C-alpha cells in the first residue's frame, strides 16, 4: 500500500504562532501510528495537513514516495474519519458509503458490490436504508468507517473517532478498528488524546507537545523508556509520580527539606553533587513490602484510598509530595495511617531538572 513521510513539517496560522514545529515522522507501509498529546498540541492540525485540508507552512509531505504538498485532498488517495462522523445527513447509509464512488462515476453494479462488502465488514448490512439520524453513535461511526474503506485508500486518517462514544462502546470499536486495519493492511494515522487507545492500538506512538514531537516509539518503549518527563507523565494511568530531589553524596539523593533520604549502592546518578533531579516512579512500582530486589524505603501518610474492585489506588503524601500507588484490592489500609513504601531502584526513572530529559543510569 503506502508509507507516509513527514519531513520538517511546520504549520503556523499566524506569524510567530507555530502550531506544528519541524515534525519528522515516518509511517511505514501497513503501520498503525497513533498521534497523542494534550489538547491543542497540534494533532488535528498535523492530520489535516496530511489530508490536505490544511496548507503546509513548510516542510515536505510524501505519500507513497510522492511529494504531495501541493496535491488537493482528493488526489492524495486518503480517507478520513472525523470525530463528529461527518455523515451526509440526508443520505441513507448506502448513499453515504457510495458517495465517493458515485462521484468517480464507478459502475452502479460495482458500487453496490463494494458498498455491500464494506457494510458487511463494519456490520451495518441491515441498516443500509437508514438515514444517519436514525442510528446510534456507534452505528454512525461504523458507517463513517465503512465509507472510509469503500474507497480502498492508501492511507486511513482518524481524528479522535471514538471520543463521542460511551466507555463500553469505545472499547468495542477500538478492537474493531484495530482488527479491520490489520485485515486490510492499510497504513493508518490515528489521533487521540486517550492514552489507552494509543497504547492498545498503535504499532508506534508519536507523542506531541506544543507542536513538537517528544517521542516516537512502540507503546511499550514509550511506557518503559520515556525520553522525557512529559512522555513519562502523559503515558500511563494513573500517571507517573514525580518528586524533586537533590543529588547528595554518592549513591544517595535527599528531599530538599530533609524529609527523606534514599541511599543504596545501586543508586548511581551521573550528575554532580548538590544538583536537583526529578525522580519518577510509576504507581505500580511502589510496593507495600520489601521484595528481594534493591529498593529504598519511604514513609508516607495515606490521604485517600480508591478501591477500583480489581485494584486500589492509594493517594499518599510526604511533605509537599503527593504520590499515587497501585495495590491489590484486598489489602486493608485505612486513611490517615502512616505506611512504609518500597521503590525498586531499577524501576526509578530519572529526569534532568529543568529540561526534563531522561537521564541514563548504568543500571
Amino acid at each position, binding site marked *: 500500500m503506502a508509507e507516509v513521510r513527514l519531513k520538517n513539517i511546520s504549520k503556523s496560522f499566524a506569524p510567530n504562532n507555530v502550531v506544528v514545529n519541524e515534525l519528522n515522522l515516518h509511517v511505514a507501509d501497513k503501520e498503525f501510528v497513533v498521534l497523542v498529546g494534550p489538547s491543542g498540541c497540534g494533532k488535528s492540525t498535523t492530520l489535516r495537513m496530511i489530508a490536505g*485540508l490544511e496548507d503546509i507552512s513548510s516542510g515536505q509531505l510524501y505519500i507513497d514516495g510522492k511529494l504531495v504538498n501541493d496535491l488537493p485532498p482528493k488526489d492524495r488517495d*486518503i480517507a478520513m474519519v*472525523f470525530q463528529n462522523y461527518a455523515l451526509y445527513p440526508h443520505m441513507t447509509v448506502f448513499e453515504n458509503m457510495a458517495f465517493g464512488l458515485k462521484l468517480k462515476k464507478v459502475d452502479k453494479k460495482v458500487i453496490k458490490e463494494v458498498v455491500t462488502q464494506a457494510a458487511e465488514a463494519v456490520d451495518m448490512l441491515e441498516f443500509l436504508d437508514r438515514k444517519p439520524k436514525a442510528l446510534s453513535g456507534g452505528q454512525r461511526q461504523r458507517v463513517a468507517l465503512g465509507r472510509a474503506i469503500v474507497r480502498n485508500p492508501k492511507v486511513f486518517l482518524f481524528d479522535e473517532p471514538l471520543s463521542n462514544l460511551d466507555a463500553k462502546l469505545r472499547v468495542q470499536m477500538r478492537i474493531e478498528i484495530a482488527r479491520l486495519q490489520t485485515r486490510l493492511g492499510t497504513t493508518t494515522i490515528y489521533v487521540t488524546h486517550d492514552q489507552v487507545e494509543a497504547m492498545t492500538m498503535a504499532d508506534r506512538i508519536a507523542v506531541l507537545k506544543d507542536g513538537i514531537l517528544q517521542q516516537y516509539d512502540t507503546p511499550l518503549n514509550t511506557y518503559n523508556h520515556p525520553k522525557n518527563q512529559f512522555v513519562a507523565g502523559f503515558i500511563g494511568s494513573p500517571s507517573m509520580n514525580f518528586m524533586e530531589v537533590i543529588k547528595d553524596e554518592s549513591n544517595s539523593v535527599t528531599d530538599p527539606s530533609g524529609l527523606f533520604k534514599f541511599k543504596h549502592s545501586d543508586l548511581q546518578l551521573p550528575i554532580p553533587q548538590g544538583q536537583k533531579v526529578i525522580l519518577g516512579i510509576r504507581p505500580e512500582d511502589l510496593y507495600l513490602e520489601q521484595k528481594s530486589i534493591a529498593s529504598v524505603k519511604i514513609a508516607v501518610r495515606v490521604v485517600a484510598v480508591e478501591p477500583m474492585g480489581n485494584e486500589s489506588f492509594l493517594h499518599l503524601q510526604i511533605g509537599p509530595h503527593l504520590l499515587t500507588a497501585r495495590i491489590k484490592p484486598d489489602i486493608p489500609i485505612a486513611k490517615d495511617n502512616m505506611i512504609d513504601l518500597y521503590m525498586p531502584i531499577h524501576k526509578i526513572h530519572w529526569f534532568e531538572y529543568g529540561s526534563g530529559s531522561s537521564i541514563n543510569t548504568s543500571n
Partner: protein
Amino acid sequence: MKIKKTLYSYLLVTPYLLHFILFVAFPVIFSIVLTFHKWNIISPMQFIGLSNYKKLLLDTYFLKACYNTIIFLLIHIPLQLAIALGLALVLRENLKLRGFFRSAFFLPVVVSGVVVTILWQQLYGFESGIFNRLLTGLGLSRIGWLIDPKWAMVSIAIMATWKNVGLYIILFLVGLQSVPTSLYEAADLEGANPWQKFRFITLPAINPTMFMVVILSTISGFSLFIEPYVMTGGGPLNSTLSAVLYIYKQGFFYYHMGYAATLGLTFALVILAVVALQRKWIESS
C-alpha cells in the same frame, strides 16, 4: 382576594384587548358587513345583498390585477431565492469587509418603501436614469423600464427583490451556518467539485430555509402596493395594477367602500388558500 386577582389580570390584558378589538376584530367584522352594502363614506350605508359579489365575478380589472400579482410573484420569488442564496453563499466566505457587505445588503430592508421607490424611479428614468445610460453606453437601446407595459412589472419585481433581499440573505446565512464544515471536508476528500458539494450538501441542508423564504416572499409579494402606487400608479395600461392597489383604488379613489371590502375579503381568502397549499406541499416533501 381571588376577585381582586382576577380583576388585576383583566386590567393587564386590557391594552392588548383594546388594540385587538379596535384594530383587528372590529375592522374584520365591519368589512364583512360592508360587503353586503353600498357606501361612499359620506352618505349612509345602503344594503344591497350579494350585488358586490356578483359584480366581482364579472370584474375583468380584478382578474387582471390578480393576474398581475401572480406575474409579479413568478418573477419576484425565483429572483429573490436565487439572489439571496447566491449572495449568502458569497458572504459566508471569509471575505474582507464581510461585515460591511452584510449590513449593506440589509440596509434597504429597514429603509422606508416610499423612499426606496422614489430612488428607483430615478434609476429607471427613460432619458436620464442610470440603467438606460449604462445601456446606451454599451451601445444598446433604451428600455422603457416603467413606461413599457412589457417591462413595468419586471422592473417592479427587480426593485422589490433589491429591497427585501437582505432579509432573506440573513435567513440563508443562518441556514448555511448550521452545515458542519466537516461535511465539506469529507466531500473534498471524496473528490466532490464545488457544484457537487452545493448540490449534495448545501442544498439539502438549506431546504427548510428555502421553503421559509418562499412562503414569506409569497405573503409579502401578495401585498404588493407601495411600489406600483408610487412609481406607476398601476400603469402603463394597468400592467402594474396589483390586487391590493386595485382594492385601494376602489375604496379610496372611487369610494366604493362596500365593493373594496368584498374584493379585500376575497383576496384574503385567495392568499389563505395559496399559503395553505404551499404548506401542504412542504409538509409532504
